[in-house]
């Protein structure tokens, strides 16, 4: 079958790879109808996870179940499903306490050794271990293009918004207007934040933020810290969601949050190092929470419901729809920040 594989450090290519088959009674095979390229794929490809040549990329996909092992009970052949990018056992203490991504047996699709060597989703088909715990049935009211967001980006956004816990009258800042940041802004507004301020430097992305009801701020033109100070009688944002995954973005989040405020770190980090003055953090009584890998299974039903009620809509974020063969072009677009969300159709 066709699949997008690592060709060399930082480069992908289309290749023929063996089609997946049921290897365990809890497995399902999903024929992928829509996959997507995520910012994390670029992180993996550029060294934040040890992917190697030949590894199949991707961790977002929606499709049709074509086969199941004899232990699978919750999905069946022919079901339309979305898969969680983080694959877990579904039964351990972590999985039964809403912290699936911390499961000792968790793996991530398309992330090489870092992800437990689980073949990725940018392919014609994918094997999903633990199908009962890691597949969600997609209602007819949600099309494939929207459903593909339910496996990673949208639960991440909904979880981030919930962790930011906006109260009525509060101002929340979102650092970064990528897909997670934009959907977090939508989720925050839906969760009751009085004002959501999205910080970025890309005009197209800021326009998307503005159209969702957020206040979009171009950080090339306005200082983030003083902008939030100006909106809050010099206090700063009540809560901040860092949705980039860079030391600079983390620093911006700390710059704009008020004393006693809440910082949710949703961006992905690996070997990044930053200096912090514990005394200043302590004196500011900061509440910093790291989301880590999103426990998708704890949030995807809430994300699905938010989509069904119209609270969030990821469709405007889709900038490119490409055939699977065009994946290298899609990665290039993403790397140049010329795309917001790239969908791939096998």
């Amino acid at each position, binding site marked *: 079958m066709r699949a997008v594989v690592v060709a060399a450090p930082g480069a992908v290519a289309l290749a023929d790879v063996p089609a997946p088959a049921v290897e365990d009674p809890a497995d399902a095979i999903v024929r992928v109808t829509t996959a997507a390229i995520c910012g994390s794929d670029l992180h993996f490809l550029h060294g934040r996870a040890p992917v190697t040549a030949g590894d199949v990329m991707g961790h977002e996909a929606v499709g049709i179940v074509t086969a199941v092992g004899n232990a699978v009970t919750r999905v069946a052949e022919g079901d339309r499903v979305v898969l969680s990018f983080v694959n877990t056992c579904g039964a351990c203490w972590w999985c039964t306490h809403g912290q699936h991504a911390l499961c000792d047996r968790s793996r991530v699709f398309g992330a090489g050794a870092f992800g437990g060597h689980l073949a990725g989703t940018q392919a014609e088909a994918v094997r999903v271990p633990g199908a009962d715990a890691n597949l969600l049935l997609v209602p007819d009211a949600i099309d494939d293009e929207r459903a593909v967001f339910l496996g990673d980006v949208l639960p991440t956004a909904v979880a981030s918004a919930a962790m930011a816990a906006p109260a009525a009258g509060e101002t929340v800042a979102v650092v970064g207007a990528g897909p997670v940041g934009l959907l977090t802004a939508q989720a925050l507004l839906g969760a009751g934040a009085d004002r959501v301020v999205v910080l970025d430097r890309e005009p197209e992305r800021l326009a998307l933020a503005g159209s969702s009801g957020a206040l979009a701020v171009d950080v090339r033109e306005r*200082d983030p810290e*003083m902008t939030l*100070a100006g909106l809050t009688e010099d206090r700063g944002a009540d809560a901040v969601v860092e949705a980039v995954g860079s030391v600079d973005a983390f620093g911006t989040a*700390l710059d704009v949050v008020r004393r006693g405020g809440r910082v949710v770190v949703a961006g992905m980090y690996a070997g990044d190092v930053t200096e912090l*003055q514990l*005394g*200043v953090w302590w*004196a*500011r009584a900061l509440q910093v929470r790291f989301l880590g890998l999103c426990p998708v299974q704890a949030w995807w039903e809430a994300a699905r419901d938010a989509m069904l009620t119209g609270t969030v809509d990821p469709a405007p974020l889709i900038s490119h729809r490409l055939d699977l063969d065009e994946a290298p072009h899609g990665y290039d677009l993403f790397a140049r920040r010329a795309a917001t969300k790239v969908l791939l159709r096998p």
Partner: protein
Amino acid sequence: MGLTPGYPSSVDGPMAFPSQAWFDEFRTHINASDEYREAAADWEGDIAFLIKAEPDKGVPTDVWGWLDLWHGECRGAGLIDEARASNAAYGITAPYTRWKDVLLGDLDPIKGMMQGKLKVRGDLPTIVRQVRAATELVRLTGEVPTAFPDEAR
């Protein structure tokens, strides 16, 4: 805005902040201050000040200011580049508006450092112990005839 009587000055009118002329004038006032000389008698080390750009306030790019402070004397002052700033013993970073607040007496610099409004590179306790010297430095900025870019527009 006039100068405090008795303090020497090299200019007659207000100077733009941040500018070389402003730091030159500030240095003159520092070295004329007996209070500062006494308060900072044990201070050693130059300080780089990053005034972060605020294009909408008339500060289009980052600006690094610098004071070489040594036992109550200001041995040098002015604008420097980023490379030189990184070699300074201490660095303090804030957006332009925060610095303006300091100059106007609206933001206490020691409190600003503890609140993260002024970000310090270097040993924070060493700096915050210099409360008297910092207070006198701020008072002296008030003696520099200053033109702020966002008020000139």
